[in-house]
């Protein structure tokens, strides 16, 4: 009895003396949804978009709230942690980062090297390694933008990325894990998508923006930043980014515009909707050089044809397929040229070489700054199948002529 009692006492004390450990009530935390990191001279400027729960929740349940669903503020410090620590000087709530849904890094930091940022986030207990990364010219500006199409805070960027990934196939969401794996790899180069603000930025920073039908300004996905180690090496345009996606086989569902007479200049007038594709990349050794053979096979249908073509003729369909193939080849070549220019192996050729010709890769590995790219020749074979032409066969314009 006595012994039992003696065991029970510390257990009870544990309950009451632990002081409720790391307890934090919901109304004592500020939920951060986006973090932006800029640098001014030697000071880190960290900006936070913090949710205002009462208005944010009202938005998510449909009713319009009073006041903005989020507020932003910036703190500075000599290190990132110090800057974040300094929030305690002005923010009554303890910032809570576990629901941070994007980290936006300024272009300046990206060019200098993102290592300090990555290091901080990999050590952080609250932040998750699955937070997507973005680059913007001035990162904190992105946080000021309100968007009426996505009233729930913290959902805009991840959702935009998801759509961009699926329907445009230009960008892939890059989170800390992806970035670290790519940047530390000997063979692959890391990428981070860029965010740009188009239109009037000031117009989107107040609640008035949410009551207008047309957005004054908006956040868009811009170029794709290609990294050499941890430094931003340059930008790939959307077309080049798509070329990269073709090579890495990440294309899912995209529209390809083309001219139905094969002209390369002038605006294209027709569109091909890709529904399925397969990409095969085969490295082959030819003497001292490496030949990369890229076989692209696509299936899809045409969704716009604005020239007088008789699509019931298989010949015409084949001709059109040829033009589309040219178009795809152009994208691929542009991406390849840019990659060589930036010395960034964004498409992961080195991996392919390592997989198939391990000895060759050991030889190439020594060349600094991804110099091995110079020794690779890319040969592109594109095979486009047009499975159907939609529910209409003859272009409408030719119906009028008859």
């Amino acid at each position, binding site marked *: 009895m006595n012994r039992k009692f003696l065991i029970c006492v510390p257990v009870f004390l*544990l*309950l*009451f003396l*632990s002081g*409720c*450990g*790391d*307890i*934090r*009530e*919901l*109304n004592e*935390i500020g*939920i951060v*949804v986006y973090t932006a990191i800029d640098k001014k001279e030697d000071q880190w400027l960290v900006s936070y978009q913090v*949710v205002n*729960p*009462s208005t*944010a*929740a*009202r938005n*998510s*349940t449909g009713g319009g709230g009073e006041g903005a669903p989020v507020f932003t503020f910036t703190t500075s410090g000599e290190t990132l942690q110090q800057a974040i620590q300094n929030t305690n000087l002005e923010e009554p709530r303890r910032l*809570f980062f*576990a*629901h941070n*849904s994007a980290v936006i890094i300024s272009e300046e930091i990206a060019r200098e090297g993102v290592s300090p940022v990555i290091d901080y986030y990999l050590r952080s207990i*609250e932040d*998750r390694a699955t937070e997507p990364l973005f680059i913007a010219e001035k990162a904190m500006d992105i946080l000021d933008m309100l968007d009426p199409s996505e009233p*729930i*805070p*913290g*959902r805009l960027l991840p959702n935009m990325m998801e759509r961009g990934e699926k329907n445009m196939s230009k960008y892939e969401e890059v989170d800390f894990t992806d970035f670290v794996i790519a940047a530390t790899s000997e063979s692959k180069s890391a990428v981070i998508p860029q965010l740009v603000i188009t239109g009037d930025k000031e117009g989107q920073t107040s609640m008035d923006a949410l009551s207008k039908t047309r957005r004054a300004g908006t956040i868009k996905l811009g170029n794709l930043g290609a990294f050499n180690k941890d430094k931003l090496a340059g930008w790939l345009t959307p077309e080049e980014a798509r070329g990269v996606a073709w090579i890495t086989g990440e294309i899912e569902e995209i529209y390809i515009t083309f001219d139905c007479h094969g002209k390369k200049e002038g605006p294209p007038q027709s569109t091909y909707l890709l529904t399925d594709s397969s990409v095969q990349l085969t490295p082959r050794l030819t003497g001292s050089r490496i030949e990369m053979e890229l076989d692209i096979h696509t299936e899809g249908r045409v969704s716009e044809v604005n020239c007088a073509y008789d699509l019931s003729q298989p010949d015409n369909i084949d001709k059109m397929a040829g033009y589309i193939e040219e178009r795809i080849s152009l994208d691929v070549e542009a991406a390849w040229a840019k990659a060589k220019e930036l010395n960034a192996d964004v498409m992961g050729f080195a991996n392919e070489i390592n997989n198939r010709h391990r000895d060759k890769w050991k030889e190439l590995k020594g060349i600094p700054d991804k110099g091995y790219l110079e020794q690779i020749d890319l040969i592109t074979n594109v095979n486009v199948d047009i499975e159907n032409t939609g529910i209409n066969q003859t272009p409408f314009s030719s119906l009028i002529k008859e």
Partner: protein
Amino acid sequence: MGLFRKRKRQGGKIQEKQAVEQEGDSLSSQLDGNIKKIKELTGNTDDVMYRSVTIRGNYRLLLVYIEGISEVDRINTVINTLLQSNENEDLPVLNENENLINSLEERLLAISRCSYVENTDDLLTELLSGNTVIIADGFTRAISCNTPGGKRRAVEEPSTETVIRGPKDGFTEDIRTNISLIRDRIKTPDLWYKIKKVGKQTQTDVAVMYINNIADRRLVKEVVERLESIETDSILESNYIEEFIQDETYTLFPQIQNKERPDAVAAALLEGRVAIIVNGTPFALIAPVTLAMLMQTAEDYYQRPLFVTFLRLLRTFSFFVAMLLPGVYIAITTHHQEMLPTVLLFSLAAQREGVPFPAIVEALLMEVTFEILREAGVRMPKAIGASISIVGALVLGQAAVEAGVVSAVMVIIVSFTAITNFIIPTYNLSVAVRLLRFAFMILSAAFGFLGILAGLLILLIHLAGLRSFGVPYLTPMAPFILSEQKDTFFRFPLWALNARPESLNPENKRRMSANMKPSPPKKESS
């Protein structure tokens, strides 16, 4: 034998008790002396009735009975039978002491169960059981005739265990009725029971019932021995018995099941369990019992197997929800906010804006309020009870939210927890869950999920250590018994449940022949 630790401890007591028992004074041959004695012993209570009858002109008989607990019609029949013997000529010689009594008893046996009484203690017991005692002048032996009566509740639908499909009769307060309800269902001569009087003052009839060639003999012996070891002055309800014979007192979990339904008791008897029926309460006891059994209902065997399996899984889920939900809510919202989907976190955070108390205080406030409402609902007069408790819950809940004292989610959590608690079929198990909920709330407020995990581990260790009459409480999960899995979380079709629970060690293991699965008739080969 280590299982029956309790028996060894109490072996000594039984012998002591027998030594203490004394025989009462024997009856006097003088009728007046006997009357005086009875009056003296009963304090000349008004409801003890004396009616004298003279037969054969010179033999004075006295009928003694207690008004209210005996049936007047039957007493009158007894008197008529006695008077008829006046005309009867061929009575044996009268001056031999016992002959009159013997002949009268033979005659009375035709209308009622009779027995001899030779001392005052037995006489009083018979009187107090509602029997009529016939004392003759000049004889030291009296006759007791079975004439119990009085007002009794009729067999009604059980109020605590209602079913959609299944028999609608429930036990009453009368032990004879209750036994007959079970006899009605099991018509085997092997259904045995022994009635014992327990309680010095109340002399309550307690029947231990079992099926002779099914129930484990050691189990029956154990139950009987534990019953016999009870020395108390009163048994007013079966819980009095339960608390005296259960294995472990300091636990929230019941180790003996109480049932109001004769069909459920019959089913338990057929599995090889022992039932204890106590006079004066409609709740019969069943032992041994396991936790899994407490989560089952009689109706589980009257509905389709697949649906019952779904229900059982639902009950198991509800068991954990009822115990853990408020704790998990507190743990997530105060320790592990990262676990919530972002949008849900926003709305939870919005609701907590302006709530003055920490989540644990808020939860305790609501839970205690609910417990008060519930207890008040039981006490309140039936007519207003239901409406007041609903109104109280709704108004109090809504008003508390609007006043900003508690958040709306907390009201949802508390009410959902309360509803899941009602799914648990056994009331005294659901009580255990209700109390444990508070423990888990405090643990989670202090340590988050770590606390809940620790609590669950302690609970598991505790449950694994409990036994009910030698059967581990968590049977058939721990110890794991594959054959009993057919009727634990799952309910296999009845033809698949062809063996009695192994854990009960039944004398007769098979319930039915092995291949009872219905199948179309085989074609006769031509």
